[in-house]
């Protein structure tokens, strides 16, 4: 499904975004590498109206002069949801986007229904998690199965530029203590996804989140590194779509194990 690229003027400046599909609105907040239109997004767009805003400074877009923090970025994401997604909706955030989604749920809880945190950044215990030394090391940390990468790739300079925006928004080296302190007040039903081979965001990060969020489920996706969407799209979709469609009922096995039903 081909996403359409659009722009919307917001209070701090213009914001680019992609939209695809029809149905209940669903907002996806992209990782530090920028927007990568994966098979997971393609499949989500078959059931939802999927909005993917491009955060200012990413993917060649200009930064907004007044937005210089994660809290400020969460305010901008909230404004986008109000203006474009039509108000309260389910929100997915991947890595950096998961960190942003958590800030959004803390700052503008009325705009978030179900929350999905895909290998969320921002909560690494000190000394845990690997930091890539160079682009090749980064690729190894991101993908256990790089052969599954979609064919389109961003120019290396744009990838580097995207990651350069992390410092602009005050991305923490370890844990964002201010946000961590606010997590117990986030009462959204939350699904946390983590790849069993993710060495960038350590399991201690998601365990910490799981222990602090009052209504969260943690699901490990086997044989996936940091980029679950690329490594194991089918497994991720099985859990994710069930959660978005059935809420707590995603815990129930709704299928049949009968191989030869009569």
């Amino acid at each position, binding site marked *: 499904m081909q996403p359409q690229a659009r722009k919307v003027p917001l209070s701090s400046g213009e914001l680019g975004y992609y939209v695809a599909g029809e149905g209940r609105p669903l907002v996806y907040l992209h990782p530090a590498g920028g927007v990568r239109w994966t098979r997971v997004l393609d499949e989500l767009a078959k059931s939802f109206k999927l909005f993917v805003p491009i955060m200012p400074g990413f993917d060649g877009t200009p930064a907004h002069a007044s937005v210089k923090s994660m809290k400020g970025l969460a305010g901008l994401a909230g404004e986008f949801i109000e203006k474009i997604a039509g108000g309260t909706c389910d929100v997915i955030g991947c890595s950096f986007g998961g960190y942003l989604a958590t800030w959004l749920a803390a700052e503008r809880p009325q705009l978030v229904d179900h929350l999905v945190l895909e290998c969320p950044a921002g909560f690494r215990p000190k000394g845990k998690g690997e930091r890539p030394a160079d682009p090749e090391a980064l690729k190894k940390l991101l993908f256990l199965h790089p052969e599954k990468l979609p064919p389109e790739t961003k120019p290396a300079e744009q990838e580097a530029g995207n990651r350069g925006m992390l410092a602009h928004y005050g991305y923490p080296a370890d844990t964002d203590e201010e946000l961590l302190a606010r997590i117990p007040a986030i009462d959204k039903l939350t699904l946390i996804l983590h790849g*069993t081979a993710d060495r960038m965001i350590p399991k201690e990060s998601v*365990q910490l989140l*799981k*222990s602090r969020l009052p209504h969260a*489920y943690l*699901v*490990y*996706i086997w044989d996936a590194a940091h980029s679950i969407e690329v490594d194991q799209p089918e*497994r991720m979709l099985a859990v994710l779509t069930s959660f978005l469609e059935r809420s707590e009922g995603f815990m129930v096995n709704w299928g049949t194990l009968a191989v030869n039903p009569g």
Partner: protein
Amino acid sequence: MKFSFFHLMPYTHLDPESHEWPFPNRYFDAAKASALYRTYVESMIHAESCGFDWVGCNEHHFSPYGMMANPNLIGGALAYPTKRVKIAIVGNLVPLNNPIRVAEEYAMLDCMTGGRLVAGLMRGIPHEYLAYNIPPGESWERQREAVQLILKAWTEPEPFGWEGKHFQYRQVSIWPKPMQKPHPPLVISASNADSAKFAAEMRATMGMVLLADLPSGKECIRAYREAARSHGWEPTADNILVGMHTCIAETDAEARRQLANGLKYFDEVLMGGLQASQRIVLQKTRYFENEESRDRWKSRLDKRKTLTLDEQIERGTVLCGSPETVVAQIRRIHAELGHGVFNFTVKVGTLPDDVIRRGMELFRDRVLPQVRDL
């Protein structure tokens, strides 16, 4: 050196004729089995007072080869009559079972024994896949995924879900959790280089329960050590378990006579149907990842039948003789392999239980004092 008293719990009342697989269970006599279970369990309990460090058993299906469809039940029977000895279940066949059930039952045993469980996570010999209708070609994948899931079930501080290829659980939170932290010590079978590497990756003790020959054992140990280093750890001698058929008697001649009789039943009756089924699995499936491993296993099956007892003793693949002879055999094998755990398979076919009992006492009085410090 640590010593493990390992019991296969065979059914010993069959006629000495070859049977196809599966063994027809019309030959099974529950009253005889009941007496065997009692004898075997009492023997395992007695092993503690004979100085053994572990008592062990394992899982087999559809065969008189071993009457432990669920060895955890035997672990439960051993938990309270013993006080010191480790209960080594070597082990549950994780690709065939529900991994969460394995994690739960092992955690129970660890709590019941006060933290004395040694947890074997085995792939199983080929014919077990026929019994439980699991594709043998999936054995490696299922083993790898199941072991990781079991470790998660034991160690995760919060409820979690698992979305894998072969196993899916939306929420897992086992009660009880193991007493040993972070989890009971693992044993993973390592009878070829591939499995040795996997054992090293999982930081498990490598188990070679029936050694084919000393050079292949050395090669597996080399592969294991090398893989462990690549995963950032250095195994100790205690991480290497070597096992073999064992018979200790007053004299060499008596030990050889008894073991030869037991081996005849073992090879001709207990292994008969298994070998037929294993050949089918090996020829028709991808149970082994490569031809080399497959050929090695087939050759091992063939050699078992063709080698005489004397040849097996000479090759260092059985322990058999007077206490003094067995001490020398243990020293020789240890010098070759450098292992820290020696696993004695004591009930070889129809080897009489009173002979085994006497052998245990000889081990306690005349073998152990000579080899404990190896």
